[in-house]
């Protein structure tokens, strides 16, 4: 299956070194180190936003914000604050919550909540023409033409290890160019 070829297995080890957090100098990258699993996941999503190129037409104007949408039941809660107020390529990151797929508009990253497991195909389909990077924890999301599937390596201790698969073809179809390093890191192993 040609689609499968584009399924990358990503392994990301997010080491949360809480003990050293207080000593980080000002201005450094990870001012707010993720401390919970969803903080780590939020930060990973932020890195995806950072290392993916959106086409020009994805933004109506220069000052348009970067929209980070969440559809379905919000799994982040307060943990999303870790990326609130950050900028992506000079654009303010804005978190938006959607209940229905019809509400989703001008969204650059759409996190499909596990609660929408059954509607994932519809959601992906409705975004066929949009330049939206679709990301979900739902098992087999990339097989349903979702773009990035995040999953937790259960074997690891602590908060676990976040890994992801990427359906590059789907991303390219949406005119999104994902950083080659990010692509290379995709995969379950």
């Amino acid at each position, binding site marked *: 299956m040609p689609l499968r070829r584009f399924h990358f297995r990503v392994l*990301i*080890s*997010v*080491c949360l070194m809480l003990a*050293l957090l207080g*000593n*980080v*100098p000002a*201005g*450094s*990258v*990870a001012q707010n180190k993720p401390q919970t699993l969803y903080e780590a996941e939020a930060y990973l999503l932020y*890195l995806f936003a*950072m*290392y993916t190129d959106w086409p020009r037409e994805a933004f109506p104007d220069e000052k348009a914000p970067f929209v980070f949408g969440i559809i379905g039941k919000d799994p982040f809660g307060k943990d999303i604050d870790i990326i609130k107020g*950050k*900028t*992506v*390529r*000079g654009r303010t990151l804005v978190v938006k919550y959607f209940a229905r797929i019809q509400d989703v508009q001008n969204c650059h990253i759409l996190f499909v909540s596990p609660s929408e497991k059954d509607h994932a195909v519809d959601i992906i389909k409705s975004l066929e023409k949009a330049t939206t990077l679709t990301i979900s924890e739902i098992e087999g999301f990339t097989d349903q033409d979702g773009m990035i599937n995040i999953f937790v390596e259960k074997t690891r201790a602590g908060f676990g290890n976040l890994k992801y698969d990427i359906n590059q073809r789907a991303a390219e179809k949406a005119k999104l160019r994902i*950083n080659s*390093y*990010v692509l290379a*890191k995709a995969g379950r192993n």
Partner: protein
Amino acid sequence: MIRFHNLSIKSKITAIVMLTSCAALLAACAVFVSYELMTFRATMVRQLSLLAEITGKNCAVPVSFDQPADADPTLANLSIEKEILAAGIYRDGKIWAKYPKGLPDNAFPSAPPAGDASFRDKKLSLTRQILDPDNKPIGVIYIQSSLNEMHSRLRHYVGTVAIVIVVAAVVALLIATRLQGVISQPLLELSSTARGVSEKKDYSVRARKHGDDEVGALIESFNEMLAQIQKRDTELQEARVTAERANQAKSNFLSFMSHELRTPLTAIIGFSEMLMSEIETQGRPEWVDDLRRVHDSGKYLLELINDILDISKIEAGKMDVHLETFDIPALVRDVKDVMRPLVERKNNQLVIECPEDLGAMQADRIKVRQCLLNLLSNASKFTDNGTVRLEVRRKVNLESSNSAGKSQPSSISFVVSDTGIGMTAEQVAKLFRAFTQADDSTSRRYGGTGLGLALTRKFCQMMGGDVTVTSEAGKGSTFTIELPIKATQQGGTITLTPAEAAPAPRASSGCILIIDDDPAVHQLLADALGPQGYTLKFAVSGAEGLRLAKELRPAVITLDVLMPDIDGWVVLSLLKADPDLATIPVIMLTVRADQDFGFAMGVADYLQKPIDRDRLIAVLKKYHRLRPTNHVLVVEDDPAAREMLCRMLGNKDWTIAEAENGLAALESITHCQPSLIILDLRMPVMDGFEMIAELHKHEDWRKIPVVVVSAKELTPEDRLRLQGHVQKILQKGDFARDELMREVQQTVKLFLSDGDSPQI
């Protein structure tokens, strides 16, 4: 070390060029090298920061994703740059990734160093921030590079600069050595020209001009200066030549006048004198007075002429002082002999006080004599029936002899006093002025030119002394001449040293040596021979006789046989054994008659005691006459003077030949070589100087003694020309006729009486 200022201009220019070029080159090289180093450092920093940025960028994603293992391959790529010693990425302020991998953490600064780039510890360290796509710093990359390349490049530069400077210095030296000539050559030429000018005094040379620069201007002004000097020199030369010519004309006139005036006068005086004695013997006394008037007038005229010539010579600056060392008592005796008849003629008594041991003085003998004669004749002139006194004293200069060690030679004072008419103070005041006498009436009564005292004063002053006078009218006058014992050398002074006279050709003293132990015999011979005009010397023993014979080289020796120390025969054999003395005729005087033995021993003649006076004289005359060809050649153009000289000499035992000029004389010499030549200097056809030169060319003739008897005033140049060629110079003007004749006779006798005479 040679000081720079003393270097030649060539070296100076070369040194300056070298110094300048080397300094400029050094400065340029220093600037170049430091610029190169700066550029190199900047390039290094730029390259390293580029590398850091690229590496940082390549590591940005792994940093973002906190995957140090993913940064390592990127960092490992730095190995292509050999200079990079270490590199590291800081994340969250801590070392996060390292290159090379094995390096311990403490090899890196614990925190990323602040600042951009730093050259420290021979290393270049540099930090760059790693940015995420949102340009937010997510980490810091630190790279450390060694400066080996820069240092090797610096060494390379220094080496290159050294080589460049050496090569440039050599090239500069070559060029400077060649090109310095452009500046130095004109200067050196100018300098050598200037030196040449000052050394050779040749102001006609000009320095060569090379260009129109400052040196050219200098050369131009130098040349102009030379031209001015040359012009002035030429003018001076011309002026000097003119002045010299005028001066020469003056001296020539003086010389001519002295000769032309004196020569006839000498004849007048001479012949009148001869006539007088002739007439006296012929018994015509009534003519004697007339002749005496002629004679006296002639003499007076001669004196007058001499005085006037002397005065004009002094005024023309032509009077020279001829210094010689002479015996003072001898001079005084000479003066006494001359003055006595004159003084006694006026019934005056001449008193001479002169210690015999007064010794010698250095002065112009002729002038001293003339001064004394002037004063004495003056004294005699104004004194009747009185005393004329001459005192000669050595005066020690007390002041000088007191001063430390260096005793100033004392002076000699000649004091001439009389008991005559004396003078008033007024008369004394104008006494020494030329052409002025005490008053007009004096000259009317006593005659005279009044030049004598003026001349005396001048002469004394020329010899470094003076003449003073004290007088009281009616009681007499005292004139005092004071002369230094050694006359000071002054302008126009010529010192006659003994070396200047021609060496007397082994001349015999012409005397007769008497060797006898008996003083009575000495007295007897002195009485017998003295009046005959012989000079006698006495020895009281054989030893003394031999010594005197060697010393005096007598004309004849009389020898006693019986003497206490060495017997006469022994003395005779010793005399004959000495080649210098063997030819001297020896006349034996003895009481014993062993003639044969005597002749066998080489005795010339033999006289038996008691001595017969007439026989002795006859024998002595025989040996004087027996001298080989006593032939005298008189060279004189004036017939009267020649005649007079011949006649006077004819009285004696010499054969006389005459010649009216040098050429005729040389002719005569080729026929018969004379033993002595009496020579006038001023003659037509060939004068005396030329003739002496001719004589000198002949080996044989060179030895003939020459006595110059001339009325010509001798200039110093004349004296130089005669020096070494003539035995004696007698000047007609300086002597009265009888004195001159006596001098001539004595001189002739001196040169002819020696057995080894120069005709050999």
